[in-house]
C-alpha cells in the first residue's frame, strides 16, 4: 500500500471553502513544483524562487521532509567520512583525485538537501550528527588505508540501498523523486569505483556490482549491508529460472533496497 496514494484522499486538510481554494490537489501541486524546480534545481542556482510554490497538504510536506532529512543524515556521514579521510593523509596520492571527487559530490548532496528541506519545503534540516568512524574503537580508517577503503565501500553500497528504499515514499513529488534518483545513481557510481579499487589493490575480489549478497573481505559487521542482495526474483519473475543465467550474475544485475530502519541500524554503528 502506498502511503502517499492514501494521503490523496485526505487532501486538503482545510476547513473552509476559501481555504480549500488555496490548495491545489496535492498531486497537481507537486507536478507544478516539479516543473518549476526542473528549471531551477538542476541548474545549481539558489532555490529561493521556489518559495512561491503552491501550498500543499501539510502531511505530504512533512513526509517529504522526513525522508529528505533521513537522506541528509546519510550524506552528512559520507561527507564527514571523506573529508576527514582527505585531510588525514591516509589516502594514497594516486587515489586522492577519486576521493576528492566523491567528497565533493557528498558535500554537494548535503548542500542540496539542506536547501530543499529548508528553503523549498520550509522544514528544519537536520544538523550534522557527531560521528565515530572507529565504531567504538573497532576500525582505524584514518590510519589504515585498506580499512578506509573497506568502510567507503560499505557506506556507498548502503547509500545506494537507502535511496532505493525511499523511492516509493517520494514518488508523489516529481522533482524530489527525480533528484533522489539522480543522487542514487551517483552513489552507485561511487560504489562501483571503490569496490573495483579494492580489488585492484588485492584487498578483495569484489566486482563493481554485488554478487550473491557477499561481503567479500569486509568485516562481519557489514553483513547487514548486503543482506538480501542475493535476490533473483523481481515482480514475481524468477530470472534464473526464466533465463538459465547463473544466480550469481542475476543477483548482480539487480540492486536491492533497504528500509529506513535497516539503514539506521547500520549507520548507528558510526554515531558517536
Amino acid at each position, binding site marked *: 500500500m*502506498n502511503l502517499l496514494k492514501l494521503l490523496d484522499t485526505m487532501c486538503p486538510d482545510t476547513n473552509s471553502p476559501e481555504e480549500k481554494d488555496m490548495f491545489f490537489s496535492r498531486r497537481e501541486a507537486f507536478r507544478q513544483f*516539479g516543473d518549476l524546480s526542473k528549471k531551477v*534545481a*538542476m*541548474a*545549481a542556482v539558489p532555490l529561493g524562487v521556489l518559495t512561491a510554490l503552491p501550498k500543499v497538504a501539510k502531511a505530504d510536506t512533512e513526509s517529504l521532509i522526513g525522508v529528505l532529512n533521513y537522506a541528509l543524515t546519510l550524506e552528512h556521514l559520507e561527507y564527514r567520512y571523506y573529508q576527514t579521510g582527505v585531510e588525514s593523509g591516509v589516502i594514497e596520492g594516486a*587515489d586522492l*583525485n*577519486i576521493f*576528492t*571527487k566523491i567528497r*565533493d*559530490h*557528498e*558535500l*554537494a*548532496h548535503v*548542500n542540496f538537501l539542506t536547501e530543499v528541506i529548508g528553503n523549498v519545503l520550509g522544514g528544519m534540516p537536520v544538523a550534522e550528527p557527531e560521528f565515530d568512524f572507529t565504531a567504538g574503537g573497532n576500525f582505524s580508517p584514518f590510519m589504515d588505508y585498506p580499512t578506509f577503503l573497506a568502510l567507503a565501500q560499505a557506506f556507498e553500497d548502503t547509500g545506494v540501498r537507502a*535511496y*532505493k528504499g525511499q*523511492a*516509493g515514499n517520494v*514518488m508523489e513529488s*516529481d522533482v524530489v*523523486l*527525480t*533528484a533522489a*534518483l*539522480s*543522487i*542514487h*545513481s*551517483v*552513489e*552507485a*557510481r*561511487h*560504489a*562501483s*569505483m571503490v569496490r*573495483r579499487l579494492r580489488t585492484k589493490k588485492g584487498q578483495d575480489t569484489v*566486482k*563493481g*556490482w554485488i554478487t550473491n549478497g557477499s561481503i567479500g573481505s569486509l568485516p562481519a559487521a557489514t553483513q547487514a549491508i548486503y543482506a538480501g542482495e542475493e535476490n533473483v526474483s*523481481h*515482480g514475481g*519473475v524468477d*530470472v534464473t529460472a*526464466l*533465463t538459465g*543465467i*547463473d544466480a550469481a*550474475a*542475476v543477483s*548482480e*544485475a*539487480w*540492486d*536491492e*533496497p533497504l528500509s529506513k530502519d535497516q539503514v539506521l541500524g547500520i549507520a548507528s554503528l558510526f554515531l558517536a
Partner: protein
Amino acid sequence: MKNELIKPKGLVTNTNRRNFLKFGTMSVAGAGLLLMGCNDDDDMMPPMMEGVSLGSGDIGILNYAYALEQLEAAFYATVLTGGYFANASAEEKTIMGDLEKHERAHREFFKAALGSAAIADLEVDFSSIDFNSRTSVLGAAKTFEDLGVAAYNGAGQFIENVDYLVIAGKIVSVEARHAAAIRDLINPGSDDFAGDDLIDANGLERTLNFTDVLTAASTYVKTPIDFSQLPS
C-alpha cells in the same frame, strides 16, 4: 501518412532530427531512421520496416526500458564475438561477460513481465561500431550505459505503480555501476567514473527525456519506435 516515408531526402536531411522525433509519430520517426539507412545506398529505396509502438502509461515505460535493454543486450552479445573481446585482458573479459549476462537478464525480465504487451524484437544496427577495436567497443559501452542511467532517471517520475518504480530503481543503479566501470577502463584511476560531464554542481546526475534518449538510440536501432503515447 505513408508518403512521409518516401519524402525526398533533400527536403529533410537538414532538419533537426530531434524536432522530427518530437512529434513521436511512427511515420515521422520512421522517416528519420530510414533516411539514415539510405545514406550508404542512395540507389535503392530502403525496405519498408514495421515499427513498434511502446504504448501508454506504465506499460509504455516498461516497453521503453525493454527497448533499451534489448539494445544493450544485443550490443554485449556482439562484443563477445569480436576481436576486442578475444584479446581483452582477464579483467575486461570478466566485465564484458558480466555485462552481457546482466543486460540479457534485464531484457528477458522485461519481456516476461510485459507478456503480450511487449514490443517485438528490435532490429539493431551496430555498423558504426568496430568490434575489433577496444576504443570503439568501450566508447559505445560508455554511451549505452550512461544513456541507460539517464533514461531510467528521467523516466522514474512518470511511473505510477510503486512496484515498477522500485524495479526500475534496482536496475538503474546496476547500470550506473556498469557505467562507472567502463569509464574507469577508458580512463583508469581518473575521476571520470562520475565525471563532471554527467554530474552537476548539486551532485545530481543528468536525466534525459524520452525524445533525447530515443534520438541517441536511433543511431543503433533500425526499427522505427513510436513513443507518442508515453506520459508527459
